């Protein structure tokens, strides 16, 4: 009961901050709501005994990616006067699509028969980081190394674009 309450709290705040994030006129405010969102997602990870992921959620998403967003948003310096409503002219379509998907999810939950693989359960070993380390360096090695190449390409791209801009 308590657990359900905690989860519902996290879920509610996640949804609310997500909605606020996309509706705020000031992009810097959007970033703040996104930060709130990340915190509560980390909370959900904690509920699932994925403490390492919770920490990563904060370190990488909140601490690095969102900082980059914040820099970009602040660097862009959107004029407050020019900032019209954030609503795109297609917003009724998008809202309709969103409601459609949401309805489908609700329908799905009402049917009740959501097959879940029994192997998926909360690990109680507490060795999250260690288990992750072993998996990452044996079974998931190739995706891991590919990830490093992707990071490398990202770095090359970022430097290339930034240098191009500086030169101009």
């Amino acid at each position, binding site marked *: 009961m308590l657990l359900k309450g905690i989860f519902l709290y996290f879920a509610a705040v996640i949804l609310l901050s997500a909605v606020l994030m996309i509706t705020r006129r*000031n992009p*810097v*405010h959007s970033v*703040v709501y996104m*930060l709130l969102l990340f915190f509560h997602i*980390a909370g959900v990870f904690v509920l699932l005994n994925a*403490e*390492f992921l*919770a*920490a*990563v959620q*904060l*370190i990488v998403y*909140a*601490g*690095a990616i*969102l*900082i980059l967003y*914040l*820099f970009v948003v*602040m660097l862009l310096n959107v004029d407050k006067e020019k900032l019209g409503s954030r609503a795109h002219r297609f917003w009724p379509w998008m809202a309709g699509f969103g409601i459609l998907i949401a309805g489908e999810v609700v329908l799905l939950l009402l049917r009740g028969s959501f097959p879940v693989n029994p192997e998926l359960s909360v690990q109680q070993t*507490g*060795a*999250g*980081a260690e288990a992750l380390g072993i998996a990452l360096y044996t079974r998931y090695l190739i995706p891991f190394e590919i990830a490093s190449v992707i990071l490398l390409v990202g770095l090359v791209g970022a430097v290339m674009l930034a240098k191009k801009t500086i030169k101009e």
Partner: protein
Amino acid sequence: MTVMDQVANIAYSLIIPVAVLFGFIMLNAAYLSYMERKVLAHMQARMGPMMTGWHGILQPIADGVKLFFKEDIIPAKADKWLFSLAPVLLLIMSIAAFVAIPFGPPTDFYGILSNKVPLWLTNLNVGILYVLALASVGTYGVIMAGWASNNKYSLLGGFRSAAQMISYEIPMAFAIITVVLLAGSLNLAEIVNAQSEKWFIIVLPVGPVAFLLYLISGVAETNRAPFDLPEAETELVAGFFTEYTGMRFAMFFMAEYANMVVISLLVSILFLGGWMPVQILPNTWLGGMPPVSWINGLFRLMPPVLWLLGKVYFLLFFFIWLRATLPRLRYDQLMAFSWKFLLPLSLATLLTTAVMKQMGLL
């Protein structure tokens, strides 16, 4: 168990520790300013605060009361919402970091308590990551304060400060990974226990390097001298908190001091053996022999938590000492120092550790 027992249980296991820890943080936040002023003054052959109480001992309280009565000014052009949020966020993050820090092994306080209680609020398996995560979120407080003030100095100060903090986070992370590699755990208590024979600072050749890396990055993370560029008053007035007054200003100060304490605690835990007492020579070597073992035994008499706090206050003194001694870096030097020197050095340290561990040398 009756309801009363449960309430008492919660009181003992939660309320008292929370109160004690919170008190500790507040006391530190207040009295570090006193310590800083006194130490700086004496280093510059001055006396520092002397008027309020014996040798100015009541100065922090007077300062606090004064700040309560100061007008709270929010500039008309500021983004009021973010302007208010920034210091609060920063303060929350720096206070919450203390939760995961272990202050000593479980103890019964020399028989006062019937069973042993741990000297930590919670022992997280990812303790070190938790502290790091909160520190990285603290960057928002700085940058948001700078942006929300709508003041050119604040904005530049905030940006500089944030860029500096993230730049030094990388060598810091690599230094921590070196420690994790040595200890084999992310749990802070386990990291301390791994140092019962040998503190990580004396694990040659990597220990001292990693220690220095962490120390330097730690000072830079807290925006303290010689890395206090964001607050370089000669060019940026007061940096990101130029526009803040009264209690909001106080919050930035408290957060900074709390951060200093956290960094000192982490340095002690990660490199200086945490609550382990000093050993003149290790037990495994000549330390077992009589004259040395007597001294080692003497050291062991002091409670572990005091050892930890001793190290912490020495480090805090060291930070103040740095401020009194070193000139401020130029911003380009500061960035280059992190990216071109500390980063490769920290990577090399990490790799050396891994190689030596692989070869069974560590």
